[in-house]
Every structure is written in C-alpha cells, then in structure tokens.
C-alpha cells in the first residue's frame, strides 16, 4: 500500500467551505435582525410595533 486514499478529498473541502460560509451568513443575519429590532424599537416607539408610546416617551 504505497499509496493511501486521502481521507480529505477536495470535495470535502468544498463542502466544508460551503457549510462554514452558510453558518457565518446565518449568524450574521440573526445579528442583523436583532440589531434592526433594537434600532426600530429604540428610536420610534409609536412606529415599531404599532403600539402607541407612553406619556413619558411622547
């Protein structure tokens, strides 16, 4: 057995890059939606969820 079959084929590397890439994109997307929610709720209580602001916030 002079030659060995490599455990990690080029194909696996490509799949891994795809999985890692998609994972990173999903995490960034969750972070963005969270940030967007905070920004929307924080800046305009009347507009954010359609709930009228309290007297203090108005």
């Amino acid at each position, binding site marked *: 057995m002079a*030659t060995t*079959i490599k455990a990690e*084929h*080029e*194909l696996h*590397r*490509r*799949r891994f*890059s*795809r999985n*890692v*890439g*998609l994972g990173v994109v999903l995490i960034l997307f969750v972070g*963005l939606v969270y*940030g*967007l929610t*905070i*920004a*929307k709720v924080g*800046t305009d209580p009347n507009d954010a969820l359609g709930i009228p602001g309290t007297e203090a916030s108005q």
Partner: protein
Amino acid sequence: MTDIRAYERTAPQEAGFGDYFALLKPRVMSLVVFTALVGLIVAPTPVHPVVALASILFIAIGGGASGALNMWWDADIDRLMRRTQKRPIPSGRVTEGEAFAIGITLSVMAVVMLFLAANAVAAGLLAFTIFFYVCVYTMWLKRSTPQNIVIGGAAGALPPMIGWAVATGGVSVESVLMFALTFAWTPPHFWALALFVKTDYADAKVPMLTVTHGRDATRRQIFAYTLALAVVSLALGFTSIGGPAYMGVAVVLNALFITGAWGILKRSDADSEADKHAAERKFFKLSLAYLFGHFGALLVETTLAHWGLGGW
C-alpha cells in the same frame, strides 16, 4: 491508484461557498452598494445607522439575486463568450437549478426584509429593479433588440433612487436625476466595451449595436449619449444635493468624457485595430472613474454641508 485518479478527474465539480457568491456578480454589486449608499446619505432625512446598514445590505442582496437569475437564464450564451465562460454555471461548478433557486429565494428575502427595515416605496423599487433586470432586460430585450443596453440600463440605475427612498420614503427630482445619470452613462460604458470585445457578442448572437448597426454607428451613438449624459450631470449639480465642489468635478469629468467620445467618433476601425483599441479601452476605464467621481462628489458635497460648507 489508477482507479482513484480516474475518479478524481471525472467526478462532478462541487461548488464551494465562493462559487455561490460569484453568482451574485460581486463587481456589479459593488456599484449597486456604492450608488445606493450615496443616494441614502445625500438624502435630507437622517437614517439610523443600523437601518442604513441593513437597507444597503438588502439592496445589495436584491441586486445580487437578480445577477444569479441573469446567469441562470443566460447560461447558454455565457458558455459561448470568452468573457463569461468562467462563470459558475458555464464552468460546471453550479447547476442552473441551484442558481435559479438561490436567485428567487434571495430576491424575495431581500424585498421583504427591505420593507421591514425601511419602507414600502424602497421595497417596491427594489422589486421593480429585480423584475426589470431579469424579465425585461435578460429574458426579453437582451436577445431581441440592439437597444438592450439602453433600456436594460434602467435596472442598474435604480439603486440610488432606492437608497433615497429608504431615507425619505419617496421619490424626488434629485433621486430621478441620480437615476438619469447612471441611465445615460450605461450605453457609452457598455458600447465602448463592445467595441473591443466585438467577436464575443457576435458569437453568442446577442444583438449588440456593433453587430446590428456596425461599429461606426456605435461610435456615433457613444458620442450622442455622452452629450446627453453631460446635460444630466450638470442638471444634478443645480439641485439641493449639488454645489460648487460637485460642479467642479462634473465639469472636469464631462470635458474628459466628451473629449474621449470625440476621439472614438473620429477614429476609423483601421486605427482602432492598429493600436488594439487603445482609445476604446481608455474610454471604458474613464467611464468607471466618471461614475464613481460623480457619486463621490455628491458625498463630498453632503459632508461639506455638515460643516456649513458645500451646497448652493
């Protein structure tokens, strides 16, 4: 060993993350991001930074998704043109079905998310941009008329209007003129390219102006559109987002652009072949500087306004 090697050579190519990203036409996306960002920043209404970031990202994703749908539809002619043969589908790294699925999914997601992040006008304009680029330009005009570039250019010209709509929730003369600037810039930009990659479009039977009406007619059209472009460029300078700095940049860039177009008009095909289309290549590069220069100048004008400078 022989068997394994044979497998390695004949195995179908599997796409990496970068191949899917390439479907979104990152270079075109950079233009979309830049012009949309300028449209958003020069608008008179301030936008929360997170909302601005999210909106620009969704505009970019929408633009990228339309690029993926364009590659899905045009895979047959992309295989024929040297410039496009290395794209993910013609090179066999991504299947047509995958490109279609990614394009549709990202299109819907981008429009819905832009609606949630900004407003209905911005989301509507983004949806119209995707529809126009994919259905009107890619599926219909590109293969049926030599005016494909002119009318299809509208899709690429909409991002600054979307950016403006994110901030203001509407459309105004400033945003329409920003649209018109990119719209009038597109024909001379692409026809200059067509003058030095002529054989590719002919091979793919795409009715580019150089093929249907000849190269001399294309030179005349480039010059005519360059003059129209100058009018739009200077008109934008007299609106609320213009000012002396913008005007200075616009005058210089238009003088260079018109001079370049005049040079192209006066050349014969023999001259062009002799120096390997040097003037056309130079004009094409100048066209990139022209657009980035104009939108950059609008940004400078807005920045100066924060210090009490800039504007009329």
